[in-house]
């Protein structure tokens, strides 16, 4: 591999990252499996959450092990505002996350529909503006709507995270045309595909399309073997990125012979 192909980092704000795989931590069968999956993924960004606590059961050691795994790997935590329905709630939760996790990075989620968990774009933009003013590095989970994405960039978000499909659905990229348009219209924006990825091939497709990274959780944690699946996604993401950089050939509606023959090799029955 030439040197040009090896120097392939990207940035969230001022932070330079090599891995293009952001991994969620929910739903793993045990803390050890999660830690092994984090190691196998090679991720440098791991998402976490917050929960109202008093009546809740303990976390069964997950958070302690996540912190250890992240430290060992030189990765960062990315807390989310899952469960928020209003900008005001999300802003308060983000402040709490900054204190609990000691990071100004926040995955901003403000959901507007219970069935699809589709982001409420109005509340999302409002919350993003406030949090950027408050010094956060805001990574908003958003739809593929171009104008909303522009508003989020205008608000000061260094990265956008449009969905591939509804959270946890595993459907892959359901609207490639919208995402292609987003990529074309926002060529300088850092775009992470978040939510709906179900298989490594979906992640590879996102990278081939020119997206900068992918964030996923259930596709790994719900696998029968999360550690192996984390490695499969790592490899698929690398492959997709390499393919994008190399240049994927244009598809055509007709056949083009790949072997440079002239005419027919044998003329039988002549």
């Amino acid at each position, binding site marked *: 591999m030439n040197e040009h192909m090896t120097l392939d980092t990207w940035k969230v704000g001022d932070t330079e990252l090599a891995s293009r795989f952001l991994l969620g931590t929910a739903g793993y069968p045990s803390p050890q499996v999660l830690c092994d999956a984090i190691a196998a993924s090679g991720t440098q960004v791991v998402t*976490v*959450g*917050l929960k109202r606590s*008093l009546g809740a059961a303990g976390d069964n050691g997950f*958070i302690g092990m996540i912190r250890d795994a992240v430290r060992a790997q030189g990765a960062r935590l990315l807390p989310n505002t*899952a469960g928020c329905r209003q900008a005001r709630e999300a802003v*308060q939760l983000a402040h*709490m996350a900054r*204190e*609990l996790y000691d990071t100004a990075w926040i995955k901003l989620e403000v959901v507007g529909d219970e069935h699809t968990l589709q982001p409420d774009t109005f509340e999302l933009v409002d919350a993003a503006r406030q949090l950027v003013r408050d010094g956060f590095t805001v990574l908003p989970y958003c739809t593929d709507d171009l104008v909303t994405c522009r508003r989020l960039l205008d608000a000061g978000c260094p990265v956008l995270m449009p969905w591939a499909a509804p959270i946890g659905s595993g459907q892959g990229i359901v609207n490639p045309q919208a995402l292609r348009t987003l990529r074309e219209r926002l060529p300088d924006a850092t775009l992470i595909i978040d939510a709906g990825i179900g298989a490594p091939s979906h992640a590879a497709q996102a990278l081939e399309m020119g997206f900068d990274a992918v964030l996923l959780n259930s596709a790994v944690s719900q696998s029968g073997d999360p550690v192996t699946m984390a490695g499969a996604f790592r490899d698929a993401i690398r492959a997709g990125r390499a393919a994008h950089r190399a240049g994927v050939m244009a598809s055509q509606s007709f056949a083009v012979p790949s072997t440079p023959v002239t005419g027919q090799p044998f003329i039988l029955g002549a």
Partner: protein
Amino acid sequence: MTAPIDILLDGQVRCVAEGSSLQQLMDELGLQPADAGTAVNGQFVPRAARAEHHLQPGDSVLLFRAIVGG
């Protein structure tokens, strides 16, 4: 002797001494300062402000803890 007051803690009624601070409530619950994030009436209260934040009757206190997430 101060009179007790009722507050809501994570949605449940709880009796605390009048004039209690948020930090004293955390102490009563056996929580270390870094164990939870705190909000009173929907407003985040930073760790450093808990000792000076005195609870009022009917205040709604929410505690948040770190958990796994996607």
